[in-house]
């Protein structure tokens, strides 16, 4: 009951933002996290951001995502 995915906000347009997930983008509603700005990492569930991941955790998330990419693209 908890499928939420981290993504990076590319741009904000009023109440919505364009969010990037490993190269795939989607409009995400920001009603629940109105303070999100471009460059922030957010957790997205059912098309809504539910949490702004703070900077330190965001760096960790990014490092993990990069390792994952390297693992599959390099080895594949």
């Amino acid at each position, binding site marked *: *009951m*908890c*499928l*939420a995915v*981290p993504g990076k906000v590319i741009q904000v347009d009023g*109440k919505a933002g364009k969010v990037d997930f490993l190269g795939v983008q989607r409009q995400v*509603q920001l*009603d*629940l*996290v*109105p303070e999100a700005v471009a460059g922030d990492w957010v*957790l997205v*569930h*059912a*098309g*809504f951001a*539910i*949490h702004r*991941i*703070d900077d330190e*955790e965001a760096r*960790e*998330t990014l*490092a*993990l*995502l990069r*390792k*994952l990419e*390297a*693992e599959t693209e390099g080895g594949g």
Partner: protein
Amino acid sequence: MMGAPVDVRAKAEELYARIEGLVRGPVSLMEVCGTHTMAISRFGIRARVPANLRLLSGPGCPVCVTPASQIDHLIAMGREPEVVITTFGDMLRVPGSRSTLQRERARGRDVRVVYSPFDALDFARKEPNKLVVFMGVGFETTSPTIAATIVRAREDGVGNFCVYPAFKVVPPAMDALVASEEARIDGFICPGHVTTIIGSRAYEPLARDRHVPCVVTGFEALDVLEGIAMLLEQLASGRAEVEIQYRRATCREGNPIAQEMLERVFRRCDAWWRGIGLIPGTGLEPSEEFSVFDARERIDVEEPDKAQDLPIGCGCGEVMKGVKLPPDCPVFGKGCTPSRPLGPCMVSTEGACAAWYLYGGGR
């Protein structure tokens, strides 16, 4: 997201060793989130923890615990000519007492799968001659997204959008399970993203009054292992507190804006949990102010007679209360498989029985 294989495996081994050192006699930990159900099975965790440690699945699959009569009611609404049913994919195959949304679609009713309730609202905007009903199933991770959608509908004056409320609230259900003493529950693996919304303080009464340790846990393998280790550490030292393992996405207060949205748009009501029964104060429905967005107010179709929730011989109730593990159910894998499911736990991909069947229970 996982890191490089070597790092992750080494860390996992450390955690397995820690867990092993902490398990003395029999101990039962329950998770109440379908994503945890899947994670434990997917990552093969049961195979590696001591036999004395029982990892139970609770009623953490909101789809599994939606009563048949609510599905029947929604289906009946869907048979009205101008009604379009919109739903998360999770609900499409779940049976009411006679049919499923998928079957209804095959029969020509307008049933659409959406990824977000906001897409359903968008659809309503584009089709002013239809009445769009969104099937509102979910716990506190999901209900704020529908609350926000309803607020937008009001702000933008979209009149042809409404929600069938089948939302549930988790902490009182956890309390009811402990109080019933039907299953032994020594600790709770608390749902990560529900807690993102409600905050870890939501479990403090449970820990304090029922003396059950609670650890808010994430969904990667290392998260789950760490959460289990933290629970066992509490038990070893006789503590019963609320702790957070999932620091990167949760805190004590939760998301105040989401909570406020819930309080504004919804009010608590009693809810029937399929296979379990009535648990007071565990439901959400649109409040007075937003009652025009309640599909039951908008569409004059009587709720069908309360149907038998589970077929004869189905053990989902006991599985969801943690009394049995899926393989303990007499029909598991025999009369009941994903291709011929008897009960909701086997139909939904994140139901305890389906997860066990598909992922081998993690053994």
